[in-house]
């Protein structure tokens, strides 16, 4: 193997132990994180949203500020489904995911023949339109008041408890399933063709790639995933408000992705965790200045760490390996 390309996390040449690490940590948190499970669930929701953005923005190069539309669409769908049809969470989650995926596919078909700033504006515009619609459609969405939901037992077996322990495990399981899917997708021939489209659409057309269809497909998958994140948020907090559709959500997801590192999958884990923790801790210290910390962190990351905070992990990992190599000698 070429030494110029260092193996990085998010790469198939990395030992399985490293892959197990984030999941073991997340599981461990379940046992030691008493009192913080809702915060943990919140982080998992944001990881899923950021992961979905990584598929579209990181891997396929779809410049978007519109993922809030999918997040909110999923959230409202899950809430409305639970209120009017059936309140078992897994069913609601699947329904919300599929419907958001269809919504993303339809909007994607409209806008994915454009690129760059035009595409960015269109994603933003769709996001603003649906937010405004939700604001006006008070009878359906509750408008400013939002929707309060009562959820049933997960799979008819586990009840969402007051401390959010079941909700945390539920969110973790959902994230894990989506992560496996995302992992498979980015390493697949399909994922590689997306990587190619991001690098050079003319090349891909020349080898016979239906570029637009590929982009629509990943946009739909990414939208569905963001919809799941929104649905999870609605189900675990038992509330949906207009803030789930706010453009700010899209912006936060982009910040989390860049902070953690794009095109890495695990970057979403680090970015979302750091963001939510910094927000939580810094806001306790000084409620007005936590954005300064995030802003500073973001600046430092984009200026010094091309691969986001994941790069710090890569450096640590290489040190480890060198250490073990020495021990073996």
């Amino acid at each position, binding site marked *: 193997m070429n030494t110029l390309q260092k193996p990085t996390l998010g790469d198939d040449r990395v030992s399985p132990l490293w892959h197990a690490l984030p999941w073991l940590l997340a599981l461990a948190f379940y046992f030691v994180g008493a009192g913080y499970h809702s915060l943990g669930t919140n982080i998992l929701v944001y990881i899923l949203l950021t992961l979905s953005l990584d598929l579209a923005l990181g891997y396929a190069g779809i410049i978007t500020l519109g993922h809030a539309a999918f997040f909110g669409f999923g959230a409202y769908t899950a809430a409305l489904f639970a209120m009017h049809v059936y309140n078992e969470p897994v069913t609601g989650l699947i329904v919300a995911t599929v419907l958001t995926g269809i919504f993303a596919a339809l909007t994607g078909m409209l806008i994915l023949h454009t690129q760059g700033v035009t595409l960015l504006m269109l994603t933003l515009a769709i996001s603003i339109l649906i937010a405004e619609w939700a604001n006006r459609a008070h009878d359906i969405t509750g408008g400013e008041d939002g929707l309060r939901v009562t959820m049933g037992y997960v799979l008819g077996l586990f009840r969402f408890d007051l401390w959010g322990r079941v909700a945390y495990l539920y969110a973790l399981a959902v994230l894990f399933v989506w992560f496996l899917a995302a992992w498979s997708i980015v390493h697949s021939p399909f994922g590689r063709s997306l990587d190619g489209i991001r690098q050079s659409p003319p090349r891909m*057309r*020349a080898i016979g790639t239906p570029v637009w269809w590929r982009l629509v*497909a990943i946009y739909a998958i990414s939208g569905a995933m963001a919809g799941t994140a929104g649905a999870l948020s609605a189900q675990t907090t038992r509330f949906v408000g207009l803030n789930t559709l706010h453009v700010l959500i899209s912006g936060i997801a982009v910040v989390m992705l860049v902070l953690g590192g794009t095109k890495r999958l695990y970057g979403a884990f680090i970015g979302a965790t750091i963001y939510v923790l910094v927000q939580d801790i810094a806001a306790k210290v000084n409620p007005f200045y936590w954005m300064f910390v995030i802003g500073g962190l973001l600046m430092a990351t984009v200026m010094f760490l091309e691969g986001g905070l994941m790069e710090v992990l890569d450096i640590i990992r290489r040190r480890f390996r060198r250490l073990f190599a020495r021990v073996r000698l």
Partner: protein
Amino acid sequence: MNASANALEIRGLSKNFGALAVAQSIDLDLKPGARMGLIGPNGAGKTTLINLLTGMLAPDAGAISLNGEAIARMKPEDRVRRGLVRTHQINTLLTEMNVLDNVAVAIAERDGIAWRMFRYGGQWRACLAEADERLREIGIDAVADRRVSELPYGQQRLLEIAIALALRPRVLLLDEPAAGVPAAESHVIHDVLERLPKDIAILIIEHDMDVVFRFAREITVLVQGRILTRGVPSEIAANPEVRAVYLGRSVK
């Protein structure tokens, strides 16, 4: 039917950019195994013709048929799938991938497995294995693991050809395959061109007259979107009209 004897058949192909006619009723036939050179001064419409053939531009009038099938209204990717493949003059390679993956991605697309998202391990390995073979044929298998951005320009040009071949073309359009390659290395490109499969019909556009006249068995001269003349290389070289458009009117 006579039409099926031609791998590529172009009839009355025309395209205007506003008042500027960039292709004026072009007729051109390529038989299987043809080695046709397309030359002409800058702005003659050579690249426009390639774009019309590949579907990047829509013609205003005219017909194109590939192995007897009308393709003038087909999407670019459908033409590629039917065996009409081009190489690019400027670099469009996937520079962040390694050399092997660049070819494997093309093979996956050709075999229709580029939509697979799950359970693809075996198929992808087969793509990689075949990609390695294609690189060996062209003689750049030693750099299979290198990132394309680290590759010397000459090898990038060879990779371009390897990718085109991996698509199993029946008609291959070579858009300046030797452009930008240092003179000392251009013989490598020429050797590869000489060894291209005999049954592929090839249309080559090239500024380097040495390359065209060594490679092509017939040459078509394009001037201002119109075919000026055509013939075997020796006729073209001797044609005073061709010399005039190429070298200006000051030819003795």
